């Protein structure tokens, strides 16, 4: 696999280095010996389905979960031994919001800043800046319970920035948000990246990984299946285009043998067949010429979803 360098990676330093990282719960190897390195300034993704070990890995970066094996260095420190020092470097956006719903938007930020030992004189102005960044100025004095899901998420991100961290950990940042709220959030994260904040994002959405990540690892069953930039992964593990054809649940299996020579690779899903080829339209014409008219057809660019399917034989979102 060719090494991938983002612009920032050229000048950055390794801010997170994990080697043979392992977490075992009883018989279950939630994280099974993974090795990766994150360069300061880059946006790094952990892509995988639910239960792949992404959140577990995140928690071991912050040292809020003890690891079963391997080594971990964050800003040169071992989170297991220097937890408070490591977490002082971090901003953490957890999968589930844990804002205090009884407190106002502003108080949530101030209370959180105090956990870093930051003085009130700093927090008063910082809270205003963060509220503005989170586009919550109208809601500053509202109780958090009055916020929408997207607003709460933005507040959680703002909260994670109170200590001006160099490294921001985002665990499933847009799960449960509607498309518009997701785009607003991605925009906020982009801007942070632009000013040099290192982003680490777990997601099971391939579009999120493609939007946000310079480089990512694909994780399944606690193991790394592949590593690279979204573009290089698609290039290495998929064709340029995909033709999706539906013949109806009964006929899909019957026609699949007749399609083999049309495609670089075929993937048969319960409801459709994915025909991997560099030219989807040509493949569709060829299929029609053989008299195999599909009920519906769609030509699209390959995505990380296809990479994941290729690597694991499963789809990301079940």
């Amino acid at each position, binding site marked *: 696999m060719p090494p991938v360098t983002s612009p920032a990676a050229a000048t950055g330093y390794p801010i997170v280095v994990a080697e043979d990282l392992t977490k075992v719960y009883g018989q279950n190897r939630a994280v099974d010996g993974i090795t990766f390195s994150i360069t300061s300034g880059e946006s790094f993704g952990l892509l995988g389905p639910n239960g792949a070990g992404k959140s577990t890995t995140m928690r071991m970066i912050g040292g809020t979960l003890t690891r079963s094996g391997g080594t971990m260095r964050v800003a040169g420190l071992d989170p297991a031994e220097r*937890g*408070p020092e490591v977490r002082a470097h971090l901003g953490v956006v957890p999968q*589930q919001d844990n804002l205090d719903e009884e407190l106002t938007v502003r108080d949530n930020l101030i*209370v959180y800043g105090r956990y*870093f*030992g930051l003085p009130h004189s700093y927090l008063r102005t910082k809270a205003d800046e963060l509220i*503005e960044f989170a586009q919550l100025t109208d809601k500053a004095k509202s109780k958090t319970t009055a916020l929408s899901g997207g607003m709460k998420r933005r507040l959680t991100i703002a909260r994670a920035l109170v200590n001006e961290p160099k490294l921001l950990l985002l665990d499933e940042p847009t799960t449960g948000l509607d498309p518009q709220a997701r785009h607003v959030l991605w925009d906020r994260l982009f801007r942070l990246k632009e000013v040099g*904040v290192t982003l680490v994002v777990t997601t099971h959405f391939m579009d999120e990984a493609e939007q946000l990540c310079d480089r990512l690892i694909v994780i399944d069953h606690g193991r790394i299946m592949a590593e690279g930039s979204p573009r290089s992964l698609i290039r290495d593990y998929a064709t340029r285009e995909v033709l999706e054809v539906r013949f109806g649940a009964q006929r899909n299996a019957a026609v699949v043998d007749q399609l083999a020579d049309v495609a670089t690779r075929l993937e048969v899903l319960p409801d459709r067949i994915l025909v991997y080829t560099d030219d989807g339209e040509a493949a569709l014409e060829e299929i029609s010429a053989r008299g195999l008219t599909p009920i519906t057809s769609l030509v699209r660019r390959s995505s990380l979803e296809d990479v994941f399917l290729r690597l694991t034989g499963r789809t990301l979102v079940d």
Partner: protein
Amino acid sequence: MTDTAHDLQRLAASGRVPPPEVMAARARRWGWWYYVEYWLRTAKAWAQSIVIYMIGEPLLYLIALGVGLGTLVDSGVGTVDGVSYLVFVAPALLISTVVMSTGGELTYPVMAGFKWDRLYYGPHATPVTPAQIGTGQFVGVMLRFVVQAAIFWAIMVAFGAVPRGVLVSALVIPIGVLSAAAFGALLQAYASTLRDEGYQFAFVQRFVIMPMFLFAGTFFPLSSMPIYLHWIGWISPVWHGTQLARQVTYGAVETVWLTIVHVLFLSLCTLVGVRWMRRSYTQRMGA
């Protein structure tokens, strides 16, 4: 909008934040207090209803039991332990009500922190440690009890229930808080071990807290109960606290060694409870 490059740069690195190791050092030292600050901020929302409760409860108890029942007792047997029934029962009611308040403060809110609202997991991602979170909550609740005990004491003074004098009797405030700490630390530790909210808290309320209230020398001296029930008093922080409180409010007579036992018992329960609680928080949030 903070969308100019300059504003964003300032948002990400204003130069006003101390280095991470300084933040961590502050949190290692004061993390527990930062959680107390948070606890007090949330308590502000409930302050009004808590204060009404803290004034109303002693009034109801002292009027019903001290004055109402007291009139009956005093006209029947004369005095209890050499004083009027109001004077006898008032310090015990102070201790009991403060200790009983732990049943609300250090049970369900603990479950909310770990499970319902996951409130502990916010600070858990900061330099503050789980043990500091637990300690902070404990100290916050104890500060509430300082106020609660002080209000109860002031009402006792108003009822004329402190014959030993106002100043000495003010010692019921620390005694009340120590009693609540003794039981509360153990209760918080126990609550932190529970994974599912079930009947446990209601069970504690009915079969631990209520018996302590009823049988730990609150309404009648422990000595007037059959000997085989005395153990309820001996293992109960309420009884030990009540005996101390009676000494400072009306000069109840006890041997010095028994006084020492009371203080030691309450201190030991607090220490064991806090250590257990801190370990339990650490294990639950880190594994």
